[in-house]
């Protein structure tokens, strides 16, 4: 009897302890960083993404499943700049994992690695949900992805020194293909330069800066404040003076405000994937930008 109890306990512990896997566990707050980790780590890593392209990463909650994932992570990569401020601090504190706390090699904040736009000069919530460290949606410019890739490859090499050469080689390969792709996208997107657009949320500033699009209005009156009918009317008035060619939203945005305005202003509304998984076509980082530019070109041509 006693023995069976002991063996049962031993079995339970063995189940809980889970054999140490060779693969490094990467916890990514957003799908783009999980995709980047996969591109640089190959099968040496196992990436988990806390959010999907259909979730607003600012609004999800500190779910128990996420605490469990952070508990076992070897490396955590998040956008930062307060995008995950509503849930990440709880995951970090409750995980009991020392390896991924801020200021350790296992913690990487992508936004810190790139020049940020829309740095507020005054912090006042009357201006909506502004982020003191600038606009956090840095992944919409592929040149930012390249910047983050450098740091991520270095971290992987640092955390798994036995395979450092492998990570660096993979990064070199990725970087060469990525630079070539950027050149291709820039060429493809040349007709988009200078066109005027309306964005649902201040999500695309980095993309617009990269491709030279001009944002004339946003459907949210202030960042994080859902579009209201009265504000949409204001946008319509703006568009009479400063017409736009497209209305752009991301996969997790409600379609109704942009569809409503599209009908009123008689310009096309286009949904862009925003991140990996936002559309069926955006399966990885390369197809994410292929699809983004394809959709923009198609919509611009139809307007």
């Amino acid at each position, binding site marked *: 009897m006693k023995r069976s109890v002991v063996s049962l306990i031993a079995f339970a512990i063995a189940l809980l302890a889970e054999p140490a896997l060779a693969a490094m566990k990467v916890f990514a707050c957003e799908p783009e960083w999980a995709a980047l980790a996969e591109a640089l780590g190959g099968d040496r890593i196992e990436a988990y993404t806390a959010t999907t392209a259909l979730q607003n990463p600012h609004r999800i909650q500190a779910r128990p499943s996420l605490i469990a994932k952070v508990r076992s992570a070897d490396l955590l990569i998040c956008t930062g700049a*307060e995008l995950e401020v509503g849930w990440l601090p*709880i995951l970090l504190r409750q995980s009991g994992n020392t390896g991924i706390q801020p200021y350790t090699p296992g913690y990487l904040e992508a936004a810190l690695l790139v*020049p940020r736009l829309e740095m507020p000069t005054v912090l006042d919530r009357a201006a909506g949900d502004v982020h003191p460290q600038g606009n956090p949606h840095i992944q919409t410019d592929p040149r930012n992805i390249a910047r983050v890739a450098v740091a991520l490859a270095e971290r992987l090499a640092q955390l798994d020194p036995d395979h450092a050469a492998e990570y660096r080689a993979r990064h070199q390969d990725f970087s060469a293909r990525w630079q070539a792709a950027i050149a291709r996208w820039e060429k493809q997107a040349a007709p988009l330069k200078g066109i005027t657009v309306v964005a649902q949320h201040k999500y695309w500033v980095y993309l617009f800066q990269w491709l030279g699009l001009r944002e004339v209005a946003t459907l949210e009156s202030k960042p994080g404040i859902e579009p209201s009918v009265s504000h949409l009317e204001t946008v319509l008035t703006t568009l009479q003076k400063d017409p736009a060619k497209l209305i752009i939203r991301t996969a997790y945005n409600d379609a109704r405000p942009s569809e409503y305005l599209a009908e009123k202003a008689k310009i096309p509304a286009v949904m862009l994937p925003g991140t990996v998984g936002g559309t069926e076509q955006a399966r990885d980082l390369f197809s994410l930008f292929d699809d983004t530019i394809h959709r923009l070109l198609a919509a611009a041509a139809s307007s």
Partner: protein
Amino acid sequence: MYKRTFLALGLASLPGVVQPATAGQSELEQTRTEMREMRQAYETRIEALENRIEELEARQETPAAETAAPAETPAPTAEPAQGTAPTAANAFNPAISQILEGTYTHAPDGTRLLPGFFSAGEIGPEKRGFSLAESELALSASIDPYLYGTAAIALEPGGEVAVEEAYFQTLGLGHGFTVKGGRFFTAIGYLNEIHQHAWDFFDAPIAYQALLGTEAAGNHGEDGVQLRWVAPTDTFLELGAELGRGKDFTSNDRNKNGIGAAGLFAHVGGDIGASHSYRAGLSWLGAWPKDRGSAAVDLDNVEVLNLFEGDSYVYAADFVWKWAPNGDPSYRNFKLQGELLWRDEHGMLTYDAEGASGGANRSGYSSDQLGGYLQAVYQFQPRWRAGLRGEWLHSAHLDLGDNAETLPDADHDPSKYSVMLDYNPSEFSRFRWQFAYQELTDNESDQQVILQYVHSLGSHGAHQF
């Protein structure tokens, strides 16, 4: 660069002029040291200025950054650090937030003491008419690389200040372990670990008020230590234990060595698909009070003070299940939450310790009483949420010994039903309407309407699941 050299030369020539010829060797040495320090200070400042210029130049190269700070405007966050510091909860250290909360309550007057249930006080609401609720000031920051600290100070409308929570939490233990020390909310049930301003209804369930003895808008707290361990599993599993002085009912605060209360808890949780997530828990709170006071109305209709001494155990089972389409709660989401509390007490009860009615009498006492609630909250539009809550209490066993001659039995099962609707202009503000119908005693039912606002200003807090 040559500027720096000039500066250094100029400085170097100074002491030679002011130096009196009679200066001793030590004085000369001292002057040299001062000079070196000055030079270092200048070099550091010049370097900082050079860095700033480079940074500004770099920023000008970014054309779309017109919204970024013109260099002259001093931003309140100091340098908009495009630097290397990871995001803190706020650019300020510590993160500071202030909750503003107030109510208007419309309810009948009367003493709400539940016959046969021994508790810390009356069942709420505490105040009628307009009232400021508690204004909670919260500070939090990392203490050092190993510890995190937080304090939630409740400024009561009457002017008193209460420390709701003030604890440190380890960051450096690893292996899934976390230790908390100080004053914290007891890990009993689900709702208790959540601050009142984040609740979906204004007040705590009557099961909390009657069996755990919490205030209508308060939590059950403890001064002590808590250990938590998160298992290295894919499914969330967390085990924990606490030891403390037993400052709150079901124990009673008193001057003694050792512990006054202890707790154990286990939580499991996870996701089912992208849209569903849950957490379920079991917990236990043990207390060994001595002369724990409870007010009651005796059979002669006189309010008396009774004192309990013995063992008090509370067992709780809780669950919360949340749904959001594709896991994105911004537009629509649904939350179902329920808890069951069971309190088992046995020991001695002194009836009317202050001699207000028949005079003190000490007798054996034991009880098995349970209560619970089930609530559902639906956010049907980005700014609107509606909720329903049903609550019950039941006394499975009550033995008052010979105090049964003077104290009422718990032959009525109290119940309460609430409806709420709240409007949230942003994630930082909330206005709520709540209506409740309750039957707390045999022959009494009453209705309450509570209007409430809860706003948060300051740093963006993170909320527990």
